[in-house]
């Protein structure tokens, strides 16, 4: 269950020093090659975004009105409350999530508690489901008929409590991944030195541990904040009367077809995401407390009390995490929650429900497979062109910059951008509207950055002389890429594909504006069924996605292992 980090820390500015200087004159081949991914990102990312920006400053008739739309929006207290709510709840969720995830990750990396592998696996599990799942499960758990309603002390789950709980579940894996990575970079010598200087456990924690993970903490906070502020799955289901930016944009665009207002909210949504992105990049540029070449890996010593405490803590948290899908699973089989809990399969008969049912599920599988296939086939070679290509530096850096852009672009904004971009009658790509092809393109663009950064990191770790050796032997770069570089990077390539597969399976935000009845998706069907009040079938579909994701991850792990075994006799010698 290794997934690439949501925000691998690679500064764009550092790119320069890693590219071979004084490159050979660009050859037509390398120019053409780099043009392909550039063109893709321009069409699938830059132009739709530009379309959102230009719509935000126009009225419904298309006349330029400057910032009037924005003033209009901020002047309406009912609407602008959404901005405050979004920022406050995102910050609250991020603080809570990072605090819990830090302790959890600390237990995984710095203690000898039992079952660390299992706990690590459980922490990844929320990635398998669309963000609608925690909302639905929370209704069953804490709703008016919920098992645990009493725990809320009379407060309603519909609103801030539900939103924060749901987002905690959904963003937890991201925070744990970042913090696990940060915490596992520990230099035992620093701890020995602190000990020799008679620093107690608290002082060691404050002076050694905390400074070394400060970057990770900020990065996790920023990542969670950005995820929450742009997520609309959780608040859609359980947000009750709490207006948020993400649900507002959806209501304006879908409910009232007010695209200009949607574009304005998109701008407001883009802003915190962009700030978060910039903050993280700034942090990444600062020299992180990284491990020097001589660092000694820290092996935590067993400690009955510490290990016991963390076992208790992680166990309780893992139980809470598992409770969400378990509840949804149970509810999806109950004939009529909460009155008749006889297990039946009726809620899995989606054909009489909104949302396209099994067809939507089939579409989702196709979308996921195509996104994984074409996404990987596009992103890995493009990353290779950035790292190893010989096109002019400016082109390669432009490609790299565009590839990082999706990190700062919420899916809803991107989706709305496609609507505007394709609404132009002069756009030759217009026939793509509503097709699965468009959804594939949009999903690849939406999730481009993480696999791109994984590929970059993997490629940079390879000896640049390998490629030069290939050239010196007069073998075309593509052959060396296929025979040497690709096999070396195979685990990363497979990880990229699996990331894209799961992302496409669970995404709702960008595609919610783009599907048509023939390209309905399973995650959108969850949304539609929940909207229609068919909560149990919605839970059933969400669990179907969850199960599919889990199955795919399992198959992926097996395939990866056997592929590596077959391709990797050369690894044994190491």
């Amino acid at each position, binding site marked *: 269950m290794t997934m690439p980090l949501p925000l691998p820390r690679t500064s764009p500015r550092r790119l320069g020093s890693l590219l071979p*200087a*004084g490159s050979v004159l660009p050859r037509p081949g390398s120019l053409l090659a780099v043009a392909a991914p550039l063109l893709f990102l321009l069409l699938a990312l830059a132009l739709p975004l530009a379309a959102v920006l230009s719509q935000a400053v126009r009225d419904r008739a298309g006349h330029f009105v400057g910032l009037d739309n924005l003033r209009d929006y901020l002047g309406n207290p009912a609407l602008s409350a959404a901005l405050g709510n979004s920022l406050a709840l995102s910050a609250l969720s991020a603080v809570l999530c990072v605090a819990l995830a830090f302790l959890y990750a600390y237990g995984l990396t710095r203690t000898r508690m039992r079952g660390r592998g299992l706990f690590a696996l459980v922490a990844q599990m929320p990635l398998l489901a669309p963000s609608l799942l925690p909302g639905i499960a929370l209704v069953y758990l804490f709703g008016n008929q919920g098992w645990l309603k009493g725990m809320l002390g009379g407060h309603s789950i519909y609103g801030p409590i539900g939103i924060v709980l749901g987002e905690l579940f959904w963003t937890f894996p991201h925070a744990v991944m970042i913090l696990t990575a940060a915490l596992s970079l520990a230099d035992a010598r620093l701890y020995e030195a602190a000990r020799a200087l008679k620093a107690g456990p608290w002082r060691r924690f404050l002076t050694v541990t905390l400074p070394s993970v400060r970057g990770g903490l900020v990065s996790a906070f920023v990542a969670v904040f950005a995820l929450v502020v742009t997520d609309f799955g959780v608040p859609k289901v359980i947000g009750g009367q709490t207006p948020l930016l993400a649900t507002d944009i959806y209501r304006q665009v879908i409910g009232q077809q007010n695209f200009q207002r949607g574009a304005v909210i998109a701008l407001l949504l883009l802003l915190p995401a962009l700030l978060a992105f910039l903050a993280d990049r700034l942090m990444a540029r600062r020299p992180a407390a990284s491990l020097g070449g001589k660092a000694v890996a820290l092996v935590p010593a067993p400690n009955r009390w510490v290990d016991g405490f963390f076992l208790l803590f992680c166990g309780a948290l893992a139980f809470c995490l598992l409770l969400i899908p378990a509840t949804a699973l149970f509810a999806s089989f109950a004939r009529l929650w909460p009155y008749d809990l006889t297990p039946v399969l009726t809620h899995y008969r989606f054909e009489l429900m909104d949302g396209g049912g099994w067809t939507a599920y089939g579409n989702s599988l196709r979308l996921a497979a195509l996104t994984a296939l074409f996404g990987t086939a596009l992103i890995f070679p493009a990353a290779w062109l950035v790292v190893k290509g010989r096109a002019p530096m400016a082109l390669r850096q432009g490609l790299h910059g565009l590839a990082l852009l999706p990190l700062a672009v919420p899916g809803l904004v991107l989706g709305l951008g496609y609507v505007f971009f394709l609404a132009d009658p002069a756009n030759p790509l217009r026939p793509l509207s509503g097709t699965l092809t468009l959804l594939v393109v949009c999903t690849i663009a939406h999730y481009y950055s993480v696999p791109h950064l994984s590929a970059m990191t993997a490629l940079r770790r390879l000896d640049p002389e390998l490629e030069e050796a290939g050239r010196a032997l007069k073998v075309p770069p593509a052959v060396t890429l296929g025979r*040497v570089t690709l096999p070396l990077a195979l685990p990363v390539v497979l990880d990229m594909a699996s990331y894209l597969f799961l992302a496409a399976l669970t995404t709702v935000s960008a595609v919610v504006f783009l599907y048509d009845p023939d390209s309905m998706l399973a995650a959108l069907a969850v949304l539609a069924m929940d909207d229609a009040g068919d909560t149990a079938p919605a839970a059933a579909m969400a669990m179907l996605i969850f199960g599919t994701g889990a199955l795919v991850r399992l198959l992926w792990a097996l395939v990866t292992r056997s592929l590596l075994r077959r391709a990797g006799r050369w690894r044994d010698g190491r």
Partner: protein
Amino acid sequence: MNAVRGEGGEAPQDAPHLVLRGVGQRFGTFTALEGVDLTVRRGEFVTLLGPSGSGKTTLLRAIAGLAPPTEGSIRQDGADVTAVPVERRDVGIVFQSYALFPTLTVADNITYGLRALPRPERRTRLEAMLDLIGLRAHAGKYPGQLSGGQQQRVALARALAPNPGLLLLDEPLSALDAEVRRDLRAELRRLQRQLGITTLMVTHDQEEALTLSDRIMVLNHGRVEQVGSPSDLYERPASLFVAGFIGAMNRLPLARAPDGGLRLGRWPLPLPADPAAGPAPVLCLRPEWLGLEDGDLAAPLVADGHLSLPGRVLDSEYRGAQIMVQLGLEDPARPDPALAALTLTTLQPAWGPLGRGLEPGRRLRLRLPLDRLRLFAGDGAQ
């Protein structure tokens, strides 16, 4: 072994294989390399020697076509190849890291550059190369399963397999243990002679350069300091840098008297005052040329082809066959702080006439043969 190294190019045998004219490399405002001229004969082994940052690797990459120079021209076999990229040059390269393809077997690595050959010929060539490096039994192994020395040989075989006119070696031995390095050095020299392939090697190891090369080009700060045979460089270094970089060297910083004569501390030196050596000349002599004899001396003295200086033993180190002696200069008339800071070393046979009597404090005359003395312009740092 003519099967391995085929016929050379069409150019006549005595024509130079490689000619560099004014080659320079700038990265933005930084000049990595400037005004390099070099002519390499066919079959010659030339080493580019210099400290790190001297531009030697930059020069090799320019010659390889990996990073074409921003100035000057490179001609190979009579053709201008300055801007020709590596894949269209007639070169084989052994990289510093070897850059063996870890995913491919030894055999596949060696035949990697032979895609154009028909299969049977490729096979023949592979076997010839495997025999050449003596790794026939390892053809099916992956690089990760080989020792460092074996990997180095595979890298060499892979570079030689396509029968290039020019072999480029980038610090080929630097990653190896001292013992393996010595063995491979000999083997490399043998192979190069046997194949008669023009070879350019980059190294920062002067011993490697001296033992392997027909000629050495010494680079410093992106400029050529000297080009010459190993003995030229050792015996007649052209600059203070070369003198210091290759072998051990005694250096005596001198000053100019107002009349232009040379002074060592307060002593005037009875030597010809070469004006080219500038205002702060440095007098250099290899330790092995510094002689010792008993006797006191009041001041420097030139007689029977030697410059004699008064001095005494500071320390001595027993090294078996030889004794390394550290000597100080001393003005018997009155202490001179400028002299007190200077030390010289010499190697004396342990069983020679002075032999074991070289205890610290012993007063001696230091004898510097005039024909071995070198006078350079100081670099100011001394």
